[in-house]
């Protein structure tokens, strides 16, 4: 089943055209890693997939629904599309547990007991059950990001978007977060991951998208893209990061 279909996506900020023309398809349970130089439009691409950025042109279909259609209820779509941010964006005035149960309770109207039970299961999964009563300010970066993943998972999303989830972390914290993501991938979550972790992309990606200059320059299985890049720009980029 096709989870995400992007058709001729365009996105401009004023006169600045960040995404010129991108099309791709993400199937169920696929893990897509998006790589590319900074400023290439990869984060913007990701943020268009749940319409955190208003889309300038083209279409994005999530499970068949065109989210560029202004008449659809975007909040409904977003419940199925979890997102994890580079800067974590935990709610600092709420405890870890409250961060995780907020959306299920307020958006899905789940009762507190069921939401908490689920939240503890998810905190177990990311290895942070004992931090349930702590506040985000008391956590390390890696712990914050794992809570952010649990918070997104609490809505039972069908797709998870990761926007450079390890870029703001100290090196020794990166592994814990990647491990959680690997586990998710193995469980069959459909994931789109913007990352600088080439190791993760090579190991976990079903496909890798190389984005540069507002286009998807090259798209292939990791072995091919990393081992046998076809485009000059891909080669130039990989020679710098590998």
């Amino acid at each position, binding site marked *: 089943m096709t989870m995400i279909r992007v058709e001729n996506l365009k996105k401009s900020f004023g006169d600045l055209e960040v995404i010129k023309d991108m099309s791709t398809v993400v199937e169920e349970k696929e893990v897509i890693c998006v790589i590319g130089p900074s400023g290439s439009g990869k984060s913007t691409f990701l943020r268009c997939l749940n319409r*955190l950025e208003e889309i300038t042109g083209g279409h994005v279909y999530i499970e068949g629904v065109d989210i560029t259609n202004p008449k659809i209820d975007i909040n409904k779509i*977003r*419940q199925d599309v*979890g997102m994890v*941010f580079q800067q974590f964006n935990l*709610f*600092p005035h709420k405890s870890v547990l409250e961060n995780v149960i907020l959306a299920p309770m307020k958006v899905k109207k789940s009762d507190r007991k069921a939401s908490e039970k689920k939240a503890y299961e998810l905190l177990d999964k990311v290895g942070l059950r004992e931090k349930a009563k702590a506040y985000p300010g008391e956590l390390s970066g890696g712990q914050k990001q794992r809570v952010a993943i649990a918070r*997104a998972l609490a*809505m039972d999303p069908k797709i998870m978007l990761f926007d450079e989830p390890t870029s703001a972390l100290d090196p020794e914290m990166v592994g814990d977060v990647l491990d959680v993501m690997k586990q998710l991938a193995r469980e069959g979550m459909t994931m789109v991951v913007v990352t600088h972790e080439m190791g993760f992309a090579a190991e976990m990606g079903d496909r890798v998208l190389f984005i540069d200059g507002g286009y998807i320059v090259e798209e292939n299985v990791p072995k091919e893209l990393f081992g046998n890049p076809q485009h000059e720009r891909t080669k130039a980029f990989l020679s710098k990061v590998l």
Partner: protein
Amino acid sequence: MDTIINALPYLMEGLQVTLYIFAIAIVIGFLIGLVVALFRLAPLKILNWIAKIFVDAIRGTPFIVQLFFIYFGLNSLDFISLDNTTAGIVTVAINAGAYFSEIIRAGIQSIDKGQTEAARSLGLNSTQNMRYIILPQAFRRMLPTITNQAIISLKDTSLLSVIGVADLTQEGRIQASATFDAFNVYLILGVIYFVVIYLLSTLASFVERKFVLR
């Protein structure tokens, strides 16, 4: 000393009026401030303009002129009739509302954009985002400034004596002329205001500590 003891019951009656006016006006003023701040930040341009004109008009005119306009100006219209206490409450509320709105707007804007993005990405709509994520954080940051404005508004209520509201200041004026002891009456008047404001700011810093931003 006797004059003070005799004057004190009247001053206490005036204090009750002052606190009553202050309590109602500050609550209404805060609600006005919240609505105006949300207007100011709304995506609709027309709402931004209404909010901006309101704030500029209040900030650009003296309190006493606003009071006279509402009490004498509006009352001169056939279809409006306000007693002096009501006119006083309305003026303090509107005046405080304009200043509160700027405080609240700045507070909301000081919250990182990522908070809204995280909330919206979880499926919260913009109202839920405001209510559960942005405003609770913004209010904690705003509390010291809000307290400051509340204190200014409390002191502004003393100007209502000019239109004959029997507030603390008005009672003080009456007692000062009745006892021929202006020195002591106004001294004690000042002490009463000072104590009330001191208690108010102590309460505020208690609340602040209780809800300290983590």
